[in-house]
């Protein structure tokens, strides 16, 4: 039974060439099918071709799983079966005498489409249908009774909609387009080409039929990039339109359940949302995973850290501005006994927490790079640095150099090799009136350690 969807993901370039884009969805199996169809019957009516396309699309969806099978399918066998199925579906087809036995058999093999898949494969169907249409010569059509069902004919006679005027949110236009295609005599391939070329503009249309599942599939495809979607979806649009067309004739208004406008706007909305997630991800310094939840989580941590840094900097600026008044506030023991978080995270995360008690500076900042993890805690003028290095590179030298640069007096160091890691703990004191701040320390450390990794790596012990 002709269902809506064959999803084929591979289209060989259309025999006629330009459909290539449209047909681009690549169904290796479909192509041979299409070729066979095209070569077989040059006299098929467009409807038949369309139907065949639909069938092939159907196959494609199944085909999707067994591309080879489709390729090897014997059209003869498929014809009858497929055509019969197709006939059943759309009313107009019922009148057809499906002579293409190869088709039907093969098609049946292909069938077993999951309805969901079918929805997603709509575009494929359309594609195939489009191809079909172009491939006027149709092996099966020879035996076709070239009597399109009245419905189909009526559809064919619908006012032609020029490609240019097709709007993404107008299903009807799309249908018209497909109808128009159907109306074209076999020789008018240029028109098909034109239609195919114009398909990208109608990307909004196919969604209407797919419903949620279709959208779901499309979403991934969209990748938030409408233009890309257009290019890739042009065929699909066409497919959908063709499919819709056949469905229209056969199944009535199923595809019109959802207003086209909703699809377009909803898709735009989704795309915009995806774009925003991506840009948010770009803002965060060390994004790890790219799923939405992680992006939001990283953003939250980053915002907190930024707030802390702002506070810290403000305080430093104030300190400087008002001379060298040390503000004595209650001391806070900031996790002196913190254990090093020797996690083997190759990802980078930022965690920052500041407890500002009056003007006493307390900052905690963590930076992780691929092989290094730095944890900087500042209480007033004392800095505690924990450093964990994944690779066994002696970094003490570089670290101590940097600490000197940063004007930190080393008070205490301890560390060594623990398993696969070097881990160190540095307690240092900030020189008086130095306005070093936590993130600067952390960044410099990470930077230098990574540099020394790079430098030492070839000669790593």
């Amino acid at each position, binding site marked *: 039974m002709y269902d809506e969807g064959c999803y084929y993901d591979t289209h060989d370039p259309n025999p006629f060439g330009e459909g290539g884009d449209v047909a681009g969805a690549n169904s290796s199996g479909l192509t041979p099918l299409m070729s066979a169809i095209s070569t077989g019957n040059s006299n098929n009516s467009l409807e038949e071709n369309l139907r065949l396309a639909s069938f092939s699309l159907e196959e494609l969806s199944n085909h999707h799983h067994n591309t080879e099978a489709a390729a090897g399918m014997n059209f003869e066998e498929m014809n009858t079966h497929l055509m019969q199925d197709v006939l059943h579906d759309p009313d107009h087809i019922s009148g057809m005498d499906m002579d293409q036995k190869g088709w039907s058999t093969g098609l049946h093999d292909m069938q077993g489409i999951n309805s969901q898949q079918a929805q997603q494969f709509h575009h494929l169907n359309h594609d195939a249908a489009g191809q079909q249409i172009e491939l006027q010569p149709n092996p099966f059509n020879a035996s076709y009774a070239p009597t399109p069902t009245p419905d189909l004919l009526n559809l064919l006679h619908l006012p032609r909609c020029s490609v240019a005027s097709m709007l993404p949110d107008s299903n009807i236009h799309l249908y018209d387009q497909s109808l128009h295609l159907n109306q074209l005599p076999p020789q008018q391939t240029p028109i098909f080409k034109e239609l195919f070329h114009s398909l990208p503009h109608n990307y909004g249309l196919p969604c209407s039929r797919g419903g949620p599942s279709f959208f779901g599939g499309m979403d991934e495809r969209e990748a938030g990039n409408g233009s890309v979607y257009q290019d890739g979806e042009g065929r699909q649009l066409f497919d959908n339109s063709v499919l819709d067309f056949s469905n229209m004739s056969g199944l009535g208004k199923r595809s019109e359940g959802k207003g086209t406008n909703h699809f377009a706007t909803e898709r735009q909305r989704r795309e915009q949302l995806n774009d925003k997630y991506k840009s*948010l991800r770009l803002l965060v310094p060390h994004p790890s995973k790219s799923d939405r939840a992680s992006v939001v989580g990283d953003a939250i941590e980053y915002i907190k850290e930024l707030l802390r840094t702002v506070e810290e900097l403000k305080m430093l600026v104030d300190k400087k501005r008002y001379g060298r008044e040390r503000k004595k506030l209650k001391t806070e023991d900031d996790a002196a006994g913190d254990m090093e978080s020797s996690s083997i995270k190759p990802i980078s995360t930022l965690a920052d927490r500041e407890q500002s008690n009056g003007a006493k500076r307390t900052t905690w900042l963590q930076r992780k790079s691929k092989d290094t993890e730095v944890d900087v805690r500042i209480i007033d003028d004392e800095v505690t640095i924990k450093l964990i290095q994944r690779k066994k590179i002696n970094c003490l030298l570089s670290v*101590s150099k940097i600490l000197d640069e940063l004007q930190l007096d080393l008070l205490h160091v301890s560390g060594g090799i623990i398993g696969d890691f070097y881990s160190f703990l540095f307690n240092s004191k900030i*020189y008086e009136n130095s306005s070093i701040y936590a993130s600067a320390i952390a960044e410099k450390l990470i930077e230098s350690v990574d540099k020394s990794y790079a430098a030492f790596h070839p000669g790593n012990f």
Partner: protein
Amino acid sequence: MNKATIIDDAITYITGLQNHVKGLSERLIEMETVEGEKQGSEEDTTEEIEKFQIEDEVKVTCIDEHRLWLKVICESKRGRFTKLMETINGLGFGITDTNVTTSKGVTLIMFCVEVRYGKL
């Protein structure tokens, strides 16, 4: 507040904060360069005050075939640790463990190093 607006707000806020941080740090750097010269002299004096009378000492013990244990007692001065590290690296030792403690101007440094004969 729907998702889109939340994300939008987050993006705006983050960029705002980033700019703020940038501005503040630049200001800080400016201020620092102005005041930088004044501070040099003070630090040395404070160090002198805390110096104790302890002799520098270096002790080396052979633990293992390839391992040494170094113990250094010295006066605390800036950059000393760095110099020490440079020396050790230059000798081709791989440091297994480190312990540095400072008390009243004196630093106790202990290393457990592994000697790699490949590098001398």
